[in-house]
């Protein structure tokens, strides 16, 4: 997804971050970091 978005929207900076633990688990530190440094977030979930 990051590669595709970077190709289509090269002016934006697309960063991938792995959430801690399984998808059942909250990750407040990551949310805080994104809130502080990011312009928006796309969360990808699946299996």
């Amino acid at each position, binding site marked *: 997804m990051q590669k*595709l978005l970077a190709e*289509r929207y090269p002016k934006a900076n697309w960063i991938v971050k792995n959430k801690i633990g399984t998808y059942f688990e909250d990750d407040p530190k990551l949310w805080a970091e994104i809130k502080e440094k990011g312009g928006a977030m796309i969360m990808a979930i699946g299996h």
Partner: protein
Amino acid sequence: MMFQELVKTYAYKKGMPNERFTFVPHPITGQAASVCRKYLEGNDPITGKPVLQEIIGAITKPLTLEEKKTGFLARPVERLLKPDTPDNLQRLFVENGWTDGLPIVLPTEERVAEMLKGTSHKLDELVGTMQPSSPHEPWSYTVEKVAINAVMAGAKPEYFPVILALASTGVPSLFTSTTSFARMVVVNGPISGQIKMNTGIGALGPFNQANATIGRAWTLMSKNLDGGGKIGQTYMGSQGNNLNYNNVCFAEREERLPPGWKAFHVQKGFKPGESVVSVFTGWSLIRADTSLAKQVHVQMPFWLSGFTPYQGASLFLDPLIADQLRAEGFDTKEKLIQWLYDTTKTTAGDYWSNYFHIANFVLPNAKKGDEPFASWLKLPKDAPVPRFAAPDRISIFVVGGETNLFWQAGDFRYIASASVDKWK
């Protein structure tokens, strides 16, 4: 199936009912990067719109007033249905997905009132909360709502404290794993004799009202008390699991435990005189065909070595096999458990490479630092690691009617126990 309902209910649970989301085809596990790229370049299978267009729109367009609304979903439910004929009501229950597909006992006010005589607790007392999986919104339920499901299952009022204890665990029978989990119910203590549960010949078969209806009530509760079991919405098990009809409900035959062997609930810290219900999760049972020429304990690791390391092992031993194992030197259940733990080890390479559930649900926690898995992740591929993460992942029950030197096993892992006495 696109998990639309799960995403919606999770958004409601978090108080963001209008959260923006988009979908790609499922599953994505094991798909090549080129396939995933095609999914992203394709259309959302639900809306039919391009996935990337939806994603970019979601992070760039201002929120509408409707989307800014927060709060939780209200579910007003009428306490009584409109009167109708028994046949029409049976049809109504089936059509609404309130049953397990079999006819039910219609929960009239009179029958529910009779069921409530099985407990001293008030009908409006909160029993617990349940959800089809942890991301789902939990629903709460009262003693009366549990009684309705107990009536539907065909239970007698004297079984009701067991069913209430089961409900109090908050564990759903129909967990919405795509891999179709089964559950198991084990009853211990004096209650099993008091309500005449079958612990002897045919204990795990369809021969006893208490065994049958307690297990069935759990499945009905899981449908009606937490919104679970809706195919394609809150139940995503690809094949389903036949054990969900009754949840392998049985009671341990405590009077035939070999000397020195503790009943299961005593192993978990309860007193022998307490009545307890315990719940387990897994997928399946196997019959272990054994040789009479070899000692039983030597043959057991062979059978358990095919089990996934993700769950556990539960052994169902006929009293004759339990006696045999004691004669082979296992004078406690704990000694046998330790033997099985030690002799079913696998390698780190096998553990981390060959199991879907380990990759999805253990590996992320190992990377996070959870022990012992974080240490196992650092081991060379040929280093031994336990198949079952700890000895308490192995459970042993004595049950059966002594018509054969028989034992079987399941990949069931212990979840929780609840006091039945508390709900009398």
